[in-house]
């Protein structure tokens, strides 16, 4: 009868040993942080456009900055779609994180140990022990840990192709539409604004002041560009980590997961502050 208790209890420990998805949880947690750092960049697409439009106003006009422009509204409308995609990805990683974090193995483990102790106290063959054994078996057979593991693996595999596709699209928007197009255009037009004023006023002192001011504006643009590049690196790491996790979700053991995911976690943790610098 002791063996009857011991088997499910040891099975429970074996299961909980390979279903502790701490590494998955840590990866998903840092994925959510990474994605939240992307939001200010997509918001800046419209702001960059507005800064560009405001650069049309000659220096010394002292007119309040433009806050609405049809073209910029169009960019803002579409970039909010990119923000929604980021939000969706964040929601996905958040849900996987909750699933991975769910502490079923702890409850199951406690119940299993308790069942063993109860069995020993009640004595062999008693009706009470039979009842306790049945409860212990029920706890193990509920298979919550196994369910958790299977569902995690299934969710990760089902989205294995979609996540990189979406992340690649976001990278394309950041690289092509933001860095190569919008920021570049803003940078050029801001320079034109200073050139225009310098051409009208040839005073050396004014030119020095304009040069300082232009450098400050240019550095702000450069900081945003650097942040955007770091976000691309972060998204690439996130995509690669997710693909590897999905590819290995069905056969990797808990002990092997940290070796697979920790390099990505470390990389993302170091990139997020770099992304946040420019915004």
């Amino acid at each position, binding site marked *: 009868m002791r063996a009857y208790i011991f088997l499910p209890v040891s099975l429970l420990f074996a299961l909980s040993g390979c279903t502790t998805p701490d590494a998955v949880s840590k990866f998903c947690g840092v994925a959510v942080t990474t994605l939240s750092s992307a939001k200010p960049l997509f918001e800046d697409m419209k702001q960059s456009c507005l800064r560009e*439009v405001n650069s*049309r106003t000659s220096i010394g006009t002292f007119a309040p900055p433009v806050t609405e422009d049809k073209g910029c509204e169009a*960019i803002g409308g579409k970039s909010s779609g990119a923000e929604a995609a980021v939000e969706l990805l964040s929601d*996905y990683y958040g849900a*996987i994180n909750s699933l991975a974090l769910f502490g079923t193995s702890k*409850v199951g483990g406690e119940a299993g140990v308790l069942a063993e102790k109860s069995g020993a106290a009640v004595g062999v063959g008693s009706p009470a022990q039979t009842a306790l054994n049945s409860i212990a078996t029920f706890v193990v057979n509920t298979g919550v840990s196994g369910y*958790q593991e299977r569902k995690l693996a299934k969710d990760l595999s089902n989205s294995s192709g979609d996540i990189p596709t979406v992340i690649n*699209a976001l990278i394309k928007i950041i690289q092509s*539409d933001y860095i190569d197009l919008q920021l570049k255009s803003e940078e050029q037009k801001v320079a034109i604004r200073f050139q225009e004023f310098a051409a009208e006023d040839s005073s050396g002192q004014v030119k020095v002041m304009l040069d300082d001011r232009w450098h400050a504006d240019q550095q702000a643009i450069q900081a945003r560009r650097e942040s955007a590049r770091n976000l691309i690196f972060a998204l690439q790491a996130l995509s690669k980590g997710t693909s590897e996790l999905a590819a290995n979700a069905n056969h990797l053991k808990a002990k092997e997961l940290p070796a697979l995911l920790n390099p990505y976690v470390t990389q993302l943790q170091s990139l997020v502050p770099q992304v946040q610098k420019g915004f």
Partner: protein
Amino acid sequence: MTSDVRKIPIDPAAQALELAKLFNDVSFAIDEYRLSEQDPPLSKSEKSRLKNVAQGMEDSAHYLTAEAIGATLEAIQPQLDNIKLITIQAKTQLEVLKDAEKVIVVATLALNLGTAMAAGNPLSIIAAADELAETLTA
């Protein structure tokens, strides 16, 4: 007679992006021209007109940038829909786990009561029974 019609792959995002770049480049070139020294020099009205043309090109580039972003997002709509579905499923699974956990908690407390009864400790029995009752009525 067979028709030799070849399908040309169209990437709306790439095309909108290319056009936006061209409009930006032309706009910038016009600005550089109006600010550079010309012989004979440009009149004030000519400069103003050129500035307006450059701004018009810039506005067009903004609309085309928006189109490029929209087309990129349009292309990944099926993937976004699938991720949304999987996220909903993961949340449902979490609810299933929470329900299962509640059942396990009750079972664990029942075991606790059984242990206390076996040990014959009245205080432990009362405490375990209270805890079980509280959980069942919660």
